[in-house]
């Protein structure tokens, strides 16, 4: 049905070069027995592969080329090594409305509590600021690598970011007029060096729980217009 080549020419070269750099960096880290080094090496290798073959496993997995795309985000990021999280929630709103809200990245901090801000740099690239331990922040740039309006947004962090991560959110109409099944997949570098531990801190000891709470707040905001809370209510002496 489709050719295996799903990456355009210029991007192939960029991938190959970027991948080589990433792999080299990763190999250097590997000497220090850093797990993130292995991940970077794997990521870099995959990018070289992508550049050389014109086929990106992340792209095809996330369904960039085809209408019948699968929503698998086993990315080139770190092969099977990274932390993979998948959570689903059904929201009683149309897919298109949910997609449009999510796609306005600057609104994401309203329900993702670890985020401080998101700034859209251009149509594809965005700048993210998140909370880090000890009142610090951590920042990274991300790009959309896959997008089907009303259906799917796939992203990954840009080379050179402090955080190495990729993910997707898919909006699929639920049966029986129940609204939309929203499925988030997220993959990030396993805890290793300093950066690894920051992202691990961000997603907590149970990353799936963190994503689940983000999705729960998204659902509540979209269904009810607000996020239920008791913060600030009166209580007696503790």
């Amino acid at each position, binding site marked *: 049905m489709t050719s295996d080549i799903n990456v355009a020419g210029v991007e192939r070269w960029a991938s190959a070069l970027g991948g080589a750099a990433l792999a080299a960096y990763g190999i250097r880290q590997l000497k220090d027995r850093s797990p993130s080094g292995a991940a970077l090496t794997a990521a870099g290798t995959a990018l070289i592969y992508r550049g050389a073959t014109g086929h990106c496993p992340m792209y095809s997995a996330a369904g960039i080329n085809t209408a019948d795309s699968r929503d698998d985000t086993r990315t080139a990021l770190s092969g099977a090594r990274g932390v993979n999280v998948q959570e689903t929630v059904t929201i009683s709103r149309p897919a298109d409305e949910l997609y449009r809200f999510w796609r306005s990245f600057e609104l994401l901090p309203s329900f993702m509590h670890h985020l401080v801000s998101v700034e859209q740099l251009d149509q594809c690239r965005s700048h993210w600021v998140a909370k880090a331990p000890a009142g610090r922040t951590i920042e990274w740039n991300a790009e959309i690598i896959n997008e089907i309006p009303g259906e799917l947004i796939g992203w990954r962090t840009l080379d050179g970011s402090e955080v190495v991560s990729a993910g997707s959110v898919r909006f699929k109409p639920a049966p029986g007029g129940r609204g939309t099944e929203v499925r988030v997949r997220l993959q990030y570098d396993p805890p290793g060096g300093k950066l690894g531990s920051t992202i691990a801190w961000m997603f907590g000891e149970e990353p799936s729980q963190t994503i689940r709470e983000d999705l729960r707040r998204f659902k509540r905001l979209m269904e009810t217009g607000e996020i239920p809370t*008791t913060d600030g*209510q009166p209580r*007696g002496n503790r």
Partner: protein
Amino acid sequence: MKAVVWHGTNDVRVERVPDPTILNPRDAIIRVTTTAICGSDLHLLDGFIPTMKAGDILGHEFMGEVVDVGTENTRLKVGDRVVVPFTIACGRCFFCERQLWSLCDNSNPNAWMAEKLYGFSGSGLFGYSHMMGGYAGGQAQFVRVPFADVGPIKISDGLTDEQVLFLSDIFPTGYMAAENCNINPGDTIAVWGCGPVGQMAIKSAFLLGAERVIAIDDVPERLKMAQEQSGAETVNFDDEQVFDRLKDLTGGMGPDACIDAVGLEAHGHTLDSYYDKVKTATMMATDRPNALRQAIHACRKGGVVSIPGVYGGFLDKMPFGAAFAKGLTFKMGQTHVMKYMQPLLDLVQEGAVDPSFVITHRLPIDQAPEAYKTFRDKKNECIKVILKPHGETVH
């Protein structure tokens, strides 16, 4: 403001706390004119409900006057007189849209706690543990009501607080318990527990067409109330074997439906009830379900066991074999209060029912700590306590 505050098992106090404020756009603040102590509050007093924290404000049966509304609340206005349902519901999720209000997906901020214990979370509740949302309750001078454009029902001036207060919980709870029995002409309904919910269930079973209702308890004044107020027949389990008596009263068939209006703190004189007391006292079990066991055992074949009584955890020695062998149907859960408020208000307005008949004690809020114990210990013929938070004349 003054509020009734939980500090631990057997430790409920009246304290000065800050006034509530609007926190979300659909909120309202209610000045509470009348509130009540519910039988289920006694489970909190007795320490049976997990995830309570010292400082929690109690109370989920209350009504009053709207004194502030959030920016998105277009349904209520300052000055409205309302009764507030004890279940908090968003009105827009899958469950609310299907009238399953007490299963609202969105109103419990601590849903993850309930999910850990139950798999999924029900709605948030006022003043009923952090697992159920951690919302400050209405045994206070003021209370914040989330999603106040969905739950509260407006009341006209012609009705007294006492006539309508119980639309917040026990009247709909008793009514739903009876409705769950699928009552057909000629049916006999047996009701375990003649506390306020039991009284409402008995009254409602007759409203829904039951031929006979048999009330089971060991507190004489409660049995007397069931008989006098609703025309129930009575069985005192101190004096009689419940199973034998029910069988005898129903021509050997057993009741068509059995309502357990007792819940997790049943006390009885059967062997299994002592076993439960020992097990719960030694933390080896969470609930004392002997009323439920009896209901399952006594129910006729193909009948319904309806459970408005609250259960919290893992029930020991359930006669599931009997339930299976007899093909019983179980109906249970927190009440979908919003589904019943308007039709029941209509009944009150028409004069068909006056739920205030259960009230035995009317007290200022300062006496709440004693009132909890009086109610729990069933002293002074106490059946239902209402509290006046602002010290209006108590008659």
